[in-house]
Structure formats: C-alpha cells, structure tokens
C-alpha cells in the first residue's frame, strides 16, 4: 500500500511539474477569446446642427439646421451668428444674437469651452447669451461628452464673462 501511495504521489508531482513546464515553455502567448465587451460605443453622428432660437413667448427652442453633420461648437456658433433662416422665421422664431460677419473664437479644451463672441453686451440680451450657450451645449451633448462636466463660458468684447449652464439642455 505504501509503495502504491508513494508512486501515486510521485505521479501527481510529476504531472504538476510537467503541466507547469508545458504551460510556461509552450509559449501559450495570446489565446483566442470569445466576444468581450469593450465599453461604450463612440457617438457623434448627426444629420445636422441644433441651434437655439427664441419663440414668441421668449422661450428657447431647438431647431435643427440640416448641415449633414454634427460639426464643431465653433461651427454651430458661427451658424448662429450668421443669422436665422427663413424656415425658422416661418416657424415663429427669432434670434437675439446680432448678425455679424466676423466669426467667433472657440477654445475647446475638453472640459473647458471658452467662446469669444465678436460683439459687446449692448448688442445682445441675456437670452441671446443663452442661445449661444445652449447651442454649444447641444453640440457637446450630441458628440457624447457629459454635459454636466463640461463648463462653457462666453466672453463678450465688452469684457463680461458668462459661465452659467444652459437652462434647457443637460
């Protein structure tokens, strides 16, 4: 019996060593796997850019401008500054953002977006500032970035800074 047990123990030990050596020396490097989850899918596709205008009651309303792509924050603000379209006017909307030919300067640093508008505070209203902030926030949201962690600030040529959140988006 003792002989048998000794032999079996020896056999187990040998098997363990052989397996270990086989695993190590066999160079089992990268092995095939099943389908694994890789996290969130990317986003950012859109048929157009969402701009915010003001309706008859003075409320902000989104309106999709069919540009064929989402575009950037700068692009969206540029569209807003370029003026309201006929279709949008026909829908009873107007804009408090002054129409200027100079483009805005947008610094997008991930969590901090700074928009420098080419006009002074006298040329716009509080609602006009909200239009810019909400349009920028809509781009941030559609590109998949978390809106509550992105701080958008607007700076006018007269020196005022506005960094409040958009009252309707996010």
């Amino acid at each position, binding site marked *: 019996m003792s*002989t048998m047990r000794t032999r079996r123990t020896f056999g187990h030990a040998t098997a363990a060593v052989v397996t270990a050596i086989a695993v190590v020396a066999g160079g089992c490097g990268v092995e095939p796997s099943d389908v694994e989850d890789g996290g969130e899918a*990317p986003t950012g596709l859109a048929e157009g850019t969402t701009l915010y205008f003001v309706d008859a009651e003075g409320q902000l309303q989104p309106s999709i401008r069919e540009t064929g792509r989402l575009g950037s924050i700068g692009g969206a603000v540029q569209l807003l500054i370029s003026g309201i379209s006929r279709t949008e006017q026909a829908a009873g909307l107007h804009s408090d953002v002054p129409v200027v030919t100079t483009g805005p300067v947008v610094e997008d640093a991930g969590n901090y977006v700074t928009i420098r508008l080419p006009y002074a505070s006298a040329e716009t209203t509080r609602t006009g500032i909200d239009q810019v902030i909400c349009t920028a926030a809509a781009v941030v949201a559609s590109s998949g970035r978390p809106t509550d962690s992105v701080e958008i600030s607007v700076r006018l040529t007269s020196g005022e800074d506005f960094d409040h959140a958009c009252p309707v988006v996010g």
Partner: protein
Amino acid sequence: MNRIAWPKISWWPTGLRTRFVLTFVAVAMIAATAASGAGYVAARGSLIDETQRRAVDSVRDRITRLAPDMSYPPDQQALDRLRSSLGDDVMVTYEELTSASGSALGLISDNLRTAVVEQDRFAVQRVVGESGPKLVMATPIMRTGIDGRRSESGVEVYVVEDLSPAQAQLDRWTRIVALTIAAALPLAIVSALFVSRSVLRPIRRLGDSANQLAAGNLSTRLEPSGRDELADLAHTFNQTAAALERSVEELRHQEAEARRFVGDVSHELRTPLMALISIMEMLEADARSWSPEDQEMAAMAVERTRKLARLAEDLLEISRLDAGAVELRLEEIDVAHAVADTLRTRGWSDEVAFAPTGPVLARVDVHRLDVAVANLVGNALRHGDLPVSVEVRAQTDDVVIVVTDHGPGLPDTDTERLFTRFYKADSARTGSSGSGLGLAITKANAMLHGGDVRAHDIDHAGAQFVLLLPRRLNEEPETDVHDAHA
C-alpha cells in the same frame, strides 16, 4: 528480532543523502515552476488587458473626433474617408454601403457582428490566425440627442489590430521564466547538498558512535549540538551509553568480587585441610590395631578428606584462571616426555597405555600442560573403563594429545557441556572422586595456550578427548605470552 519491513521500491535510491537531495530538488523545482508560472499567467493577463484597453480607447477616441465632421447619412465617400483615417485593416459599413481595406478582415466572426448589432456597445475578440494573434474590434457609431439619448445610426466600424508586439513581449517573458527555472536547478542542488550535509553529519556520527559502542568501547559519547531532534537523539544515545557502561561496570565488579571470594575461600580452606590430611594419615597408621569396621571408617575418612583437599585445590586453580592471574611460562620441551612424566608422577604408568613414537617439540607451559593432561587422564580413569590410552603427535602447527578410554562413552550429545563447571553426567554418582572442575580446568588451560579441547565418542571404544595446543616453534623464546583470559 522484530524488524520493520520497509517497502521495496526498485527505482527509489536507498541512500539517505540521495533521497534527501532528490526530494529537496523536486520540491524546489515545483515551487520555482509554480511561482514563475503563476507570475507569468498573471502578467500575461494584465498585459493582454492593457493592450486591448489601449487599442479600444484609441479607436473610440479617433471615431469620436472624426464623427462630428462626417456627413450623415453617409455616402461612399464619407465611409472611405472615415476608413482611411482609422488605419489599415478597417471596414466601415452603413446599410448597403461598405468600405473595406486590408487582408485581415476575414477574421471578423459572425459572433462579433451579432454582438455589435444587438448590444450597441464596443465589442472585442482576440483571434489567432495564420498571421499571428489579432485583436478584432467592432462598434456601432451612435447618434446622441441633445437630451443625451442614444440611438442607432446604422454605421458600424470594424478595426483589426495586430497583437504581435504583445506576443513578442510574452515570448520574452517566457524565455525569462524558463531561464529562471533552469537557473534554480543548480541552486537547488547546491542548497540540497549543503543542507543534507548538515543534517546527515550528526546521523553519521551517531552511527559511528553506535558501532564503537557495539565494538565494546563503552565510554563513547556524542557531543550534542543545537536544540533540534538530532540533538535530543544524541542526548538519548549518551544516556543509553552511560547506563550501559554503569551496568557493565557493576557486573564486572560483582564478578570480580565473587571470584576473589572463591579464591579466598579455597585458599583459606587449603591450610586447615592439609593439616587435617596429615592428622587423618596418622590416624590411618594407628588404625591397624583397630577393628576392621573402624579401619574401614578411617580409610573412608582419609579418602573423603583428600577429595575435599583436591576440590579446594581445583577451586583455587580455577579462580586463579578466572582472575587472569595465571601467566604462561612457555619453554620448548618434548611434549611426549612431559606427558610420560605426568603419568609417572601420578602413578598411572601401569594403568594407562602410552607409547611415545618420538619427541614432539612445542613451546608450552609445562605446569599448565601437566594440569590439563592429568585432568583428562584422571577423568578417563574415573568415568571410563580400562584400557585408557594416551597418544601424542604433531599435526602441522599443533601438538595433539589424545586420551581414549573404553567406557560407555559420553553421557551427553552436547559435548561442550562436559566442559562446564561442576557438570555431573549422573546426579546419582556423587561418590565419584572427581571435583567436577577437572574438564573445565583443562579447557581453560587449553584456551590459555591458544588451543582447545574437544570430546567425542569413537567406535569400538568409549570416549575420546583431544587436546590441541599450538606448537609456537617459530616464535621468539624471549616473548612472554600474556593471553588475556576470557
């Protein structure tokens, strides 16, 4: 003797050291292999995870950056632009449109396609093809509303990335692990030899000491070192040896005491017995005028007194032999002549047939020879029947003295017992005039010479006693032989 039966295993080496070293090395190698293997497996897991995560993050970041500028719904051109921006082995699909490049796209499995469609999440799969391991990544591009809700866009992206760098890294690790294990082997052997020496040295010392003890060196002791089990064993060994030495010493002391007592008693008895014999002989001389009954009584008294004196004489002799107080005085003599002298002085020349064929020279102690031969012949005369014959002859390096009687033969088949002290063949024959010590004395004298005495029956006669003594003719005459008496 009660021995433990160990199992016989033919391949298992019997040497303790070999077994120890083999076991030690085996355990060390198992430990080294297991540790290295476990470390390798863990490191491989984190390397693959990290590589995979970085690849997925990179693809997701690029798509996130590119998607806002991509027209939607996309045309073929838009798909091609996205595909070329993402790398070599990339496929982008939108409904019926497909933009693909690279040779590794065949690795995209149906499972992966299904997962992408069903789950709207990034999916990855490692595939090992002919060109090595690859990571296949697949993801839909989502549309996100201004309220944060996600919806399908129908655009799916498949990217195949080569995992050869990770594979190369793993191969390097494998080599390092194998080298580590290989390097552990000589280290384990050296350690095993070192440790086995320190363990086996006390065991060998214990064995040597036990052998010395067995050889009679009872003062052997071990020096226990350390406080381990082997030190305990050494301590126990020392206690055992000390106890043994004490017991043997005590026994020797008691034996010496007993011998001295016997010697003292017989010595003290001899003088009064001699005086008693003289008185008895005078009485016997006076007894001629007495009545026949009284004469017989007197003769019996003399005879018994003589026997008593002989017994005391023999006891004294044997106690001297026991005490080792007897020294051999060897001189070169003619043994045949000495035997004839013995027979003549004892007055046995008529009863015993002795025909010397010539001088037989030997270096023996004359007195010891006389005592030995006289006891043999006396024994034959007492217990055997006439004729008793004595023969002396040389036999190679020995001188042989043969005493043959024609009595009933030996009383016992165990002839060695005849030479024990006070051996009585027949307890009823107490009247015999022997002391019961004669043959024992003969044996002791023979052994003192380095010879022996044996007894056996012979056909057509009675018992035969053969005394063998070495002749020692080649030895230096000056050398005194001090044979230690057992």
